[in-house]
């Protein structure tokens, strides 16, 4: 009886090592394995969509998205795929993190051929256990955000079907951009924010199909950050999985009246030169949020080693990169000795703009938005 070949995917940014693995493991496994390799998470996600992978072997230190982040994504998106971490940085902290993130084994990269054979034997034993067909995910606040982030980073096209109780929603991702969301009577960013505020439920990543319309045009980075910010700013519970969606009421987490609007202190001209200053009064302090919509003016994504990964309308790239590097160091220093937890981002409310600078792992994100008044812009400024 012919045995079906097991598909083993090795993910490592060291392409030389991938070559060695392909050769060595191929020799050990004979015809039992089909060995696939990917030098980064993006290509690994592509391979996962193309093939039915039986076992993933992942390095920890990789640029852009590291192995730990990838494990977290896999745990939600592909919980039934067997995962093993193979690293040269086998610390106890990494071991604990990886095993708690769904890795079956945490292996150290060997330095001799005997060691590689032990690795093969371990992987071989593991592949003898067949996981169940199919998968399902548990939707948590961070979970859905992570999945969307990874779909966008990988420039995937997919359709996320989200359900929580009677609530059903869809998020369309095309070539790494979130282009449409719908949930009941809601569409666009309203639906997107609503879905990301759900406290529990299920999601299913499906092949992309064209949406009925394109209701979202903003950058995915900004969309995700805004959704996170709205959740943070709201202390009331998010819609639960047992709730119903009438499509009419706005959930607390996206209530625009909670938005942190900048007060008008200095009045500055287009060249950011201060031309006058007005004392603020309580009435002036907050313009009605519903009368203003944010417009993205500038966006930059960079590694904290200074490599610009993506920028849009950024006229001071070096300055922004330097700012993010500064922020990364300073945020850590600021939190020293204080029970603040992990740093996530700095929000800057300026006179005519809002900046969010976020640091996650080795990636920095800088987004500057301005406020576009949509109704009665002068009336809101009156004392």
């Amino acid at each position, binding site marked *: 009886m012919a045995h079906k070949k097991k598909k083993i995917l090795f993910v490592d940014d060291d392409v030389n090592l991938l070559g060695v693995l392909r050769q060595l493991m191929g020799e050990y496994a004979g015809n039992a394995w089909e060995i696939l390799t990917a030098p980064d998470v993006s290509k690994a996600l592509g391979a996962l969509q193309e093939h039915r992978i039986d076992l993933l072997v992942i390095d920890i230190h990789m640029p852009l998205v590291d192995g730990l982040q990838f494990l977290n994504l896999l745990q939600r998106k592909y919980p039934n795929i067997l995962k093993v971490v193979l690293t040269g940085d086998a610390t106890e902290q990494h071991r604990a993190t990886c095993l708690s993130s769904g890795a079956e084994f945490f292996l150290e990269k060997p330095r001799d051929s005997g060691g590689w054979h032990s690795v093969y034997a371990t992987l071989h034993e593991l592949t003898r256990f067949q996981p169940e067909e199919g998968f399902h995910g548990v939707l948590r606040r961070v979970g859905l955000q992570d999945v969307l982030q990874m779909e966008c980073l990988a420039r995937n096209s997919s359709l996320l079907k989200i359900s929580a109780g009677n609530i059903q929603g869809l998020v369309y991702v095309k070539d790494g951009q979130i282009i449409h969301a719908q949930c009941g009577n809601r569409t666009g960013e309203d639906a997107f924010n609503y879905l990301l505020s759900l406290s529990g439920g299920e999601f299913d990543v499906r092949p992309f199909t064209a949406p009925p319309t394109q209701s979202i045009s903003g950058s995915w980075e900004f969309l995700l950050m805004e959704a996170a910010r709205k959740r943070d700013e709201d202390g009331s519970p998010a819609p639960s999985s047992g709730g119903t969606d009438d499509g009419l009421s706005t959930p607390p987490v996206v209530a625009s009246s909670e938005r942190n609007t900048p007060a008008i202190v200095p009045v500055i001209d287009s060249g950011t030169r201060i031309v006058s200053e007005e004392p*603020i009064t309580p009435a002036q302090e907050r313009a009605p949020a519903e009368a203003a919509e944010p417009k993205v003016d500038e966006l930059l994504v960079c590694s904290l080693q200074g490599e610009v990964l993506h920028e849009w309308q950024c006229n001071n790239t070096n300055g922004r990169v330097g700012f993010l590097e500064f922020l990364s160091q300073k945020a850590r220093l*600021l939190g020293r000795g*204080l029970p603040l937890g*992990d740093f996530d981002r*700095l929000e800057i409310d300026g006179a005519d703009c809002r900046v969010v600078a976020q640091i996650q792992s080795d990636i920095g994100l800088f987004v500057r938005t301005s406020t576009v008044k949509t109704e009665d812009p002068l009336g809101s400024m009156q004392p």
Partner: protein
Amino acid sequence: MKDQVNQWFEQSVPFEGILACGVRFPDQTSATKIWADGFEDVAVENALRCVVDGFQIVQMNRINPYRLRWVYSGAFLYCERRQDGTCLGVFTAKTIESTGREELERFFGEFQAVARGGAL
């Protein structure tokens, strides 16, 4: 000015959601108040130094900041700076937006108004 801000700060009372706060003056002295476990004067003073640096680097990037909010997984740090350079940093719980937002705004309003002729 410093005496007046100091006096206001000493007389300020805690509100729901506040964990600790501190004020740092242009002469690099500071004062702190702590209500939550785990916060110590030295660490809050260190944080205030970082806040001042943060305002400077933000301005170097040609952004004129009105307020900074440092977001950590377990708390917020809200910061404002007066025209005379005095900085106020307020550590709050993450529920502040729903439980103590008005008090927080009042607190910063008082900070900006003290010794400037504004009504407290």
